[in-house]
């Protein structure tokens, strides 16, 4: 062994001691009173704190854990080829509920459920073409939150023109948001002018093109739109940020409360048309806990996010209108367009 090597090793060891001393283990000590009920979560490729689906779902698991006091654990998927292996880790450890996030895991989830009867699988955003015992596909009524966004927009507009910047019409959820938006706005005012624009590109660019989102929002604003609804992932974020550059306009986000995810749009962001992933995950875990786990599609709640700084601008009149819209939608009285 040579001197330099020793020097390096010595430095490394001191560093390890120091670092080791000032960090603490992440996992809390096991609690003996915990019932032998375990809930695991497999993320889609990405991290658990993605401010999006993964995070909302994990928050649901944690919320259910607070109430029911069970063991919860997640694993972050790094390679799409590991979906099966990651689910299997939870199966091997005897987990009772396994939550998988995103449509991409649909196939792996169904295969695992078929191989492991008795485990409850919650597939977030996984539409079930046919019912598989043990799999609940958590899907959402995007049209409902779209209607609420449309009603809100129609009540706020002064120019009688509102806009929607949308991801590709290849994705049914995006189309449903727009159907609700247009239907809701026309329910308030049949004469309203709506500029809805779908991204012309394919799946690979439609949700990751903020420049297109911004320029499309700008065009709509130049044509008189004063409320912009953005339902297009990161493309939509571009539209929100662009709208915030113009004084006195409103914008509406999508999926999660975008007040928290796109602070650049605070100037215009009045609300977001959301899917209640967290709440629905809690419901499903409770059902599994009680032994009443459903199979097939489970429709989660849809609503509007809080108004945050705009709370004072939302008059009682608008609030009543939103409640009426919810009733009308449930009664099937709001006419939704084809696209």
């Amino acid at each position: 062994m040579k001197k330099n090597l020793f020097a390096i090793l010595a430095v490394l060891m001191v560093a390890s001691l120091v670092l080791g001393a000032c960090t603490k283990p992440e996992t809390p000590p096991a609690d003996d009173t915990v019932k032998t009920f375990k809930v695991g979560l497999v993320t889609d490729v990405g991290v658990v704190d993605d401010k999006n689906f993964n995070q909302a779902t994990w928050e649901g698991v944690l919320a259910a854990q607070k109430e029911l006091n069970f063991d919860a654990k997640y694993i972050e998927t790094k390679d799409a080829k590991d979906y099966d292996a990651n689910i299997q880790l939870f199966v091997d450890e005897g987990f009772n509920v396994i939550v998988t996030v995103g449509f991409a895991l649909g196939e792996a989830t169904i295969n695992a459920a078929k191989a492991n009867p008795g485990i409850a699988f919650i597939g977030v955003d996984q539409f079930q073409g046919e019912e598989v015992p043990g799999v609940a596909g958590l899907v959402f009524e995007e049209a409902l939150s779209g209607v609420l966004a449309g009603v809100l927009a129609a009540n706020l507009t002064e120019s009688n023109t509102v806009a929607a910047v949308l991801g590709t019409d290849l994705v049914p959820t995006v189309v449903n948001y727009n159907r609700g938006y247009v239907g809701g706005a026309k329910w308030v005012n049949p004469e309203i002018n709506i500029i809805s624009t779908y991204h012309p590109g394919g799946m690979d660019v439609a949700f990751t093109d903020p420049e297109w989102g911004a320029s499309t929002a700008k065009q709509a604003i130049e044509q008189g739109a004063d409320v912009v609804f953005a339902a297009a992932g990161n493309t939509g974020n571009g539209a929100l940020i662009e709208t915030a550059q113009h004084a006195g306009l409103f914008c509406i986000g999508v999926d999660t409360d975008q007040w928290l995810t796109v602070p650049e749009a605070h100037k215009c962001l009045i609300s977001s048309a959301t899917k209640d992933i967290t709440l629905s995950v809690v419901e499903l875990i409770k059902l599994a806990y009680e032994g009443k786990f459903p199979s097939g599609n489970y429709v989660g709640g849809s609503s509007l996010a809080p108004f945050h700084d705009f709370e004072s601008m939302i008059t009682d009149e608008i609030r009543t209108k939103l409640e009426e819209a919810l009733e009308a939608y449930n009664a099937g009285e709001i006419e939704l367009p084809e696209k």
Partner: protein
Amino acid sequence: MEEHTPSQNNWLKKVWFSVRIPFLAIVLALLVGAIALLASGANPLEAYWQLFKGAFGSLRNFQRVLEKATPLIFAGLAVALGFKAGLFNIGAQGQLLLGALMAGFVGFSLKGLPPYIHIPLALLAGLLTGALFAAIPGLLRAYSGAHEVISTIMLNYVAINLSDYFSEGPWKDTSPGNIVSRLPAIEPSAEIPNIGPVPVGFIVAVLTALLIWFVINRTVFGFEINSVGLNPHASKYAGMRTKLLIVAAMVVSGALAGVGGAVETMGVVGRFQPGFNTGLGFDGITVALLARNNPVAVILSALFLGAMKGGANTMQFYANVPNEIIDIIQGTMLLFVTAEMVIRWVFKLRKQRETEITVTTGWGQR
């Protein structure tokens, strides 16, 4: 680390001299990884033990290691062969992607073929696609002087967009309920089977590595590739057709990457789906550098990387360690292998002529 004291046995000494830099780079990288683990509050020994168990703890885990190593062998060979000819084929990723795509297309579109025809046909489709796609930067380099680093990086994007187009457009899986862009599942007759826990694709990869070793070390073509890589001007002066050799080296390199993608589609994924082949070609660069462009060593370094990738999720699950630690280890390893000055300084190694390997003749040389 005692082995590097002068040994009686010349052969052992030679082996040690050729493996010491990568070996020591791995050791240092694991140490750096251990520090990162400590910093994130985990016990490094526990984490590495789980990593090891995740890779070799059961037959099923071992099979995953072999599955992960298989495309890395092909990609590593592709990059190593390029280096031998003085070419830096960063385009292995794109060639692999298109190979995976075409194998997926042949795999699902031809029906009713027996496996002994369907499998070779789909492999051939991957091979030819990779070869043709790599011929473009090869021709550009040989006849217009456009540097392959630039052109292959750009062609990687072309490959991504082409495969996205076909997965979302004409070849999209239209089975009910599917909303993601992907090709239909390949026919069972195009699936590459396993023998016990050993994927047949892995065996093919090992045989290919031995073949490439033979070609490089025992054939005229291999000799010419080597000399073009070491000194293109001298090779030309010696009467070699250097331009043709550059194109040929790129074509063979692309063919290897293409087969890697095809094996991945036919043996592991079961269809072409965007996002399932990400990064394999780039990992091939790590594999080749770690193996110092020796085709046989490529097998070992691919297995090593495959074991880390295969064990990572078990490590994350049982040791509560973020997956990214593997990226840290891999990155540091690459850094130490390429910056062997650091290794020499730390371990006070003297230069030895046998270990001198020219990775590339350098930026902009022709």
